[in-house]
């Protein structure tokens, strides 16, 4: 096992309050790591730090043996970390396939002169981007829907499309922020299948999720945050029986 991502005492404070404090976190290459914790535990802030949306107040982030602390979001993406958001922002008026083509942008070198003169580079890159989009679309199971308007596909399909957009950047690490938020429980099955498939294709996955059944079935390891601090880490089995976790979730002094 090799480490793909680790943070060392990562900290973020907002006006004196620490949303994330001294979190040491690591993800092994090829695993599915889940980050869980009660509301307000700092999970989203933690993702925002890793993906470069927020500059950390302290600590380090190392990705594939390279320090990425403080890099802006687009530079983090270029290093090979992709992410999704809780709310999906797709291009509502366009076709499903069109939403994915842009995912290949970071792999293209063409500038506006290329596009005006349709240079061979432009044509090659456009073709590659389209091929990439098709491939990803098949991968996330939306190949059939390629030429349908985004407005007309289901919420769950939109989720998969949003994940597809992140995959289209060909990341080595994929961060999923509550992939199952906003979809009905009976639809999570196909999503879990997709996440497993992503891992099997060699991409490391790290996700925040509230739906516990999903997390327990999916994750290889789980990190639990509470009050911005890491309180536990381990396999689903270990986490489920960890007293600190139970206390964080259900409150102390178990009466049962």
């Amino acid at each position: 096992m090799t480490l793909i991502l680790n943070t060392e005492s990562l900290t973020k404070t907002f006006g004196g309050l620490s949303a994330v404090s001294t979190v040491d976190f690591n993800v092994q290459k090829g695993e599915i790591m889940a980050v869980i914790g009660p509301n307000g535990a700092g999970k989203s802030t933690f993702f925002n730090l890793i993906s470069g949306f927020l500059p950390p107040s302290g600590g380090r982030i190392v990705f594939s043996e390279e320090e990425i602390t403080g890099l802006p979001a687009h530079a983090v993406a270029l290093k090979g970390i992709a992410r999704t958001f809780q709310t999906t922002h797709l291009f509502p008026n366009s076709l499903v396939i069109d939403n994915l083509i842009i995912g290949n942008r970071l792999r293209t070198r063409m500038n506006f002169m290329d596009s005006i003169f349709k240079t061979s580079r432009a044509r090659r890159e456009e073709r590659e981007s389209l091929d990439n989009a098709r491939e990803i679309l098949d991968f996330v199971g939306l190949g059939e829907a390629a030429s349908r308007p985004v407005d007309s596909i289901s919420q769950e399909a939109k989720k998969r499309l949003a994940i597809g957009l992140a995959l289209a950047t060909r990341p080595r690490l994929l961060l999923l922020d509550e992939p199952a938020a906003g979809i009905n429980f009976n639809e999570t099955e196909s999503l879990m299948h997709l996440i497993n498939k992503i891992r099997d294709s060699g991409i490391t996955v790290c996700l925040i999720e509230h739906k516990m059944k999903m997390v327990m079935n999916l994750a290889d390891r789980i990190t639990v945050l509470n009050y911005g601090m890491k309180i536990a880490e381990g396999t689903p089995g270990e986490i489920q029986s960890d007293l600190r976790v139970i206390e964080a979730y259900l409150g102390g002094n178990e009466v049962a």
Partner: protein
Amino acid sequence: MTPSINSLRSGKAIYLALGLLALALPYIITSKYLLHVVIMCYMYAIAIYGLNLILGYTGQLSLAHAGFYGIGAYTVGILTLKLHWSFWLALPAACILASLAGILVGLISLRLKSHYFTIFSLCVGLILFLTIEHWDSLTEGVRGLIGVPPPNPIPLPGGGSIVFTDLNAQYYLVLLCLVFTIFVMNRIINSMVGRTFMAIRNSEELASTIGINVFTSKLLSFVISAFFAGLAGALFAGYIRFLGPPMSHPNMTFEFLLMLLIGGQGTLAGPLVGALLVNTVTESLQFMQSYRYVVFGPFLILVVMFFPRGITGGYYSLKNRIRLKKQPRAAHKEAPPVLAADHAKTKSEELRG
């Protein structure tokens, strides 16, 4: 990404017909006055294509546009009138200068978020206007630049030359530039570069997570937008041959905005449709002159309320809807979100843990 991709393929015949019509226009309409109106429409359309790129495709409302238009016009005016440059040299110089101004303004302003950017751009627009109005030694201030020479004649190989005191010659010059503009815009918006702009319009956050440098992309869009404003201004100088400060006033930007919104922002045909429509209506309401805003003001409000994507956008969504209906496995229509009135999640909430 826009429906225009499809319509471009299917509607080649229509575009060809429209092109031929545009070419034959001076021989179809005999009224010099009408031809003049069309020339003005084309000129405005060029400037509006610039505005469309930054507002319609990149999602940033810039109110400095008339400033760049003014820079283009005055560059040509000053270079040809005072320094006796050839129009054909002054024209690219005007475009370059407008673009340079765009870079400068963009470098400062594009870091700002939506309303700050809009307010800032309005101030920039006013600064440019006030500078033009007050820099007497260069721009002749409120008197304006009078007697800008027309574009220099182009000698023809077989003797004789194209003379630009002729209305038809002016028409073809402006038409050529308009075609160039549409060509460039079409190429841009149907390429990865255009998709990049639209990704930013959609969500700056999402755009940056897929590796797009939002700032430099916005800057590029802004500069191209300024370039075309400059081009339109330059043509104006060579055609109208009188330049006064009002052409660079933010009110001019508002006019562009009106035409763009009515035509349809974020569509390829929008600027031209808007320019032609609004100007024809304005001209037919000649008697109203400056009062026309009594009608246009409320109209602008109604357009953003009911047709935020303008005529062209409305046409496309209608077409889409029909296409969807035809599709046998049309998906269930999604119910609109029931979120009561206004409490959309604020960004700070989303960022919180």
